[in-house]
């Protein structure tokens, strides 16, 4: 009797440590973040000294005018632009990796390794390397462009508003592309060869077999890739913070950097929590809408 009860408790005991750390670091802070968003608190006070703030954190954020700008930057430049570029280039590279030409020339292994390399480089390191390449006076890109006579003097890519977003986008796409390529390659490899053969027997050309075999098979993989990359990029703090810190001016301010500076530079943890809550809400809405749209599309197919 006792033995069997012990045995039925086992799965709970075994998963207890995992659930404990997840609860401590994800669940409790998530709930506490909601509470904090409605309080005034500095990092030098203990949570007991917090004052009730009502909706002040939210109204202050809105009236300061920075928040809509940062939200638009986050959605459009940081997330949408980089995800679209990653999907486009990633799909091209995945198809190239799977092409019979590379197999014929026995170049698949080498190509695959080269494409993977940016993924092995830590984000902070990728940013450091690119900051040096894009450096306004002595960076190699500027030296090459002046050497070729394309420009007269160095362009401070990360310090002027007309180029800064494109520079950040280049860094993100470079570092995060391999993940997309590898997931898509896995998706392409999971398509049974017989289906292409069947399509060929039915007289389908290259375009028709792409439309009738490849695209439908890739759709669920693409759904997951979009979901994961959007959520990870939307919430990313490092790329913008370590390239420009949100500058020049506030040209590249995004929600994640606004959260960080509100909480740890302006010492307003409540304001930081309010931005965090807003970010979570945007992502939750995005995930629900996106999953609904993609799943109904799958049904009508």
């Amino acid at each position, binding site marked *: 009797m006792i033995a069997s009860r012990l045995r039925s408790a*086992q*799965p*709970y005991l*075994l*998963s207890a*440590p*995992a*659930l404990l*750390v*997840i609860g*401590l*670091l*994800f669940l409790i*802070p*998530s709930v506490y*973040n909601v509470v*904090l968003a409605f309080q005034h608190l500095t990092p030098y006070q*203990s*949570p007991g000294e917090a004052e009730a703030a009502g909706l002040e954190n939210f109204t202050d954020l809105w009236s300061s005018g920075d928040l809509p700008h940062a939200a638009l930057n986050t959605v459009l430049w940081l997330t949408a632009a980089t995800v679209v570029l990653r999907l486009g280039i990633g799909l091209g590279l995945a198809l190239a990796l799977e092409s019979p*030409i590379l197999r*014929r*020339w*026995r170049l698949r292994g080498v*190509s695959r*390794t*080269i494409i*993977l*390399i*940016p*993924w*092995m*480089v*830590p*984000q*902070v*390191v990728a940013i*450091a*390397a690119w*900051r*040096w390449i894009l450096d306004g006076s*002595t960076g*190699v890109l500027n030296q090459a462009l002046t050497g070729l006579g394309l420009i007269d003097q160095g362009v401070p890519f990360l310090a002027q508003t007309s180029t800064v977003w494109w520079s950040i986008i280049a860094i993100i796409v*470079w570092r995060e*592309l391999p993940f997309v390529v590898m*997931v898509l390659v*896995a998706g392409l490899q999971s398509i049974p060869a017989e289906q292409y053969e069947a399509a060929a027997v039915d007289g389908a050309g290259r375009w028709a077999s792409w439309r009738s075999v490849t695209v439908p098979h890739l759709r669920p*993989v693409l759904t*997951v890739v979009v979901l994961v990359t959007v*959520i990870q990029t*939307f*919430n990313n703090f*490092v790329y913008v913070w370590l390239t420009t810190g949100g500058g020049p001016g506030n040209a590249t301010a995004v929600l*994640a950097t606004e*959260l*960080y500076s509100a909480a740890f530079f302006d010492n307003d943890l409540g304001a*930081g*929590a309010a931005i*965090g809550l807003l*970010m*979570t809400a945007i992502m939750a809405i995005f995930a629900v809408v996106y999953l609904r749209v993609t799943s109904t599309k799958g049904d009508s197919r």
Partner: protein
Amino acid sequence: MTTARSDRMTVARSRPAPRRASRENRRPRDLVFLVPFAVVLLVILFPVIWMLYSSLRPVQAISQGITWRNVFSGLSLDSYARLFEQTGFGRYLPNSIIVCVSGTVITVAIATLAGFALSRFAFRGRPAVMLVLVATQLLPFVVLITPVYLLFAELRLLNSFAGLIIVYVAITTPLATLLMTGFLNAVPQTLDEAARIDGASTLTVIVRVIAPLVWPGIVTVGVTTFIAMWDEFLFAQVFLTSDSLKTVQVGIAGLFGEYGTDWGVVMAASVVAALPTVVLFSLLQRRLVAGMTAGAVKE
């Protein structure tokens, strides 16, 4: 195209007969595809080559232009010497290793136990646990930073390795558990049942029977976890305020000067910081890619 040609030659030498048919299919027309593709690969590779190269160039040459004559002149390890003499990198490196290695060991242990429960028992609440594991993958870390900061301030865990290790264990545990469950599902259950009949306890079964069988999986989960911890910047930056405790990634961020940056030193630091992940990734490339993409696609 030189790489293509040399690659083809080495292959031709090592495997002559069976590949002949496919080699004869190589058409000049293929170059229409191969040349642009090679250019794309070069663009992808360039930042890494440039990082490595710049770390070896002497300081005075770094601001001068490069000409064909001075490309390889005066290369030295000078920047690396300056990195370890003039910055705190000699400390940051062991700091990162201590935090990441101990964090990895704890995460792998926790994930193996939880993975065993999820793989072997159909217990009530199992679907909820799986849901929580997947959901945490979608939760933004940056949102957690403020409440976790306050929580750890109360627990007096800020500015200590212990605090950072707990955070790292927590953020890596969900994915590690999902991966571990997958690896354990592949081990036939009859094996641990047999050991049980012989009277072994659950822990004995895991350590003596399961762990040796699922060793490649444990290594994959360990390396994935280590890389995630090694790369982490935000929590390390916020939690470790005293310079002597900083990790490598925070150290690099600190090298960007307000007025003028010593790029030789920054590139040397970048090479050092990238080395562990590049080495681990290359050693286990295939399995890691499979594991990491499966972790993302799993639902």
